[in-house]
């Protein structure tokens, strides 16, 4: 029987793998983030995770405006997540991915699918570090649109997470499954607000996760998420929907010059 053993969440800024040495302070901050990501991999290895479902949002990199999906499951055998000179190869769990697709459609989530796709930094940045220490883990990439408007509502993201949990628990195979939400926290890429970080908003989010009140994040509005630079929280909300209201832990929070870097874990959920 398949079961959910944890949810992990982190930033995915491309700088995490690009590692630009823009200041001593920044280099030190990136090192903390990278080390927290590797400790997530360690946790997964200790919990014997076989499959990791990763909620990440494309940024008009994998997909373009000729055909832009709101939710899409990758069901192909293998893919690679690339950013400039860094590349992470992933092997999918095709059996579970296909089960998820059918089950979610039956539950009323009309999720698109792909059998061939190139992933970008939303997957590459965290997985580059997490998979170094996670052992033999298969990865199911799950695009949940948080970056190209109009986007999936936060409430729907939470419901998606709940549906994914039901789908995993109905899977007739032996699996230990973890989920991962990538993105955030506060940042304003490509806008005149680049450099602003809404630390107060980030702390509010962190508090909810630590106190096991993740379901309340589903009530945040798209407008609030945009205003606080937290639009990518949608992927975290989906991951929290999978584990439910279980107290979590924040491994790192660093206010960097362009983003509030955060790595968080909810080890329970099963």
């Amino acid at each position, binding site marked *: 029987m398949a079961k959910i053993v944890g949810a992990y969440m982190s930033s995915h800024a491309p700088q995490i793998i690009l590692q630009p040495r*823009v200041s001593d302070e920044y280099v030190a901050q990136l090192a903390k983030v990278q080390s927290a990501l590797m400790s997530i991999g360690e946790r997964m290895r200790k919990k014997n995770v076989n499959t990791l479902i990763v909620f990440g949002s494309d940024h008009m*990199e994998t997909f373009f405006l000729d055909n832009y999906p709101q939710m899409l499951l990758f069901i192909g055998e293998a893919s690679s997540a690339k950013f400039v000179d860094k590349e992470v190869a992933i092997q999918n769990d095709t059996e579970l991915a296909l089960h998820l697709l059918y089950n979610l459609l039956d539950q009323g989530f009309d999720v698109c699918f792909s059998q061939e796709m190139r992933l970008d930094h939303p997957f590459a940045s965290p997985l580059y570090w997490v998979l170094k220490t996670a052992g033999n883990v298969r990865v199911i990439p799950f695009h949940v649109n948080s970056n190209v*408007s109009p986007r999936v509502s936060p409430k729907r993201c939470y419901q998606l997470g709940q549906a994914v949990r039901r789908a995993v628990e109905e899977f007739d195979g032996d699996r230990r499954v973890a989920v991962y939400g990538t993105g955030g926290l506060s940042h*304003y890429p*490509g806008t*005149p607000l*680049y450099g602003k970080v809404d630390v107060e908003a980030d702390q509010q989010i962190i508090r909810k996760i630590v106190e096991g009140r993740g379901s309340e994040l589903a009530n945040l509005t798209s407008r609030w998420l945009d205003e606080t630079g937290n639009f990518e929280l949608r992927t975290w909300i989906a991951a929290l929907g999978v584990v439910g209201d279980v107290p979590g832990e924040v491994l790192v929070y660093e206010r960097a010059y362009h983003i509030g870097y955060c790595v968080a874990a909810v080890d329970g959920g099963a």
Partner: protein
Amino acid sequence: MRELFFPELRFYRLHKMARAIHLDADLRKKFWENPEAVMDEFGLTPEERELVRSKDPVKMFNAGVMPYAIFYLIWEAEGWIFLPPEKQTLYKEVSAS
């Protein structure tokens, strides 16, 4: 606040070119050497061309260009991502005094 990440139809070609420059190292090199030729290739409108030539992220944003296209053209293609923080951030914290 405008809907921040809506890709305006009138910038379709610019968005397509910015994404291609992000994904394709050869095209990026070609863009550095001859931006006009790459803009021809993607059929940019006069308005789009003027915005790309400006290399001004605030101007692009105010015109309604998608923030990620701006990120690909300025922070990536122009190398801002490697500049000292104060040179690549546009927002400056207002001091309390």
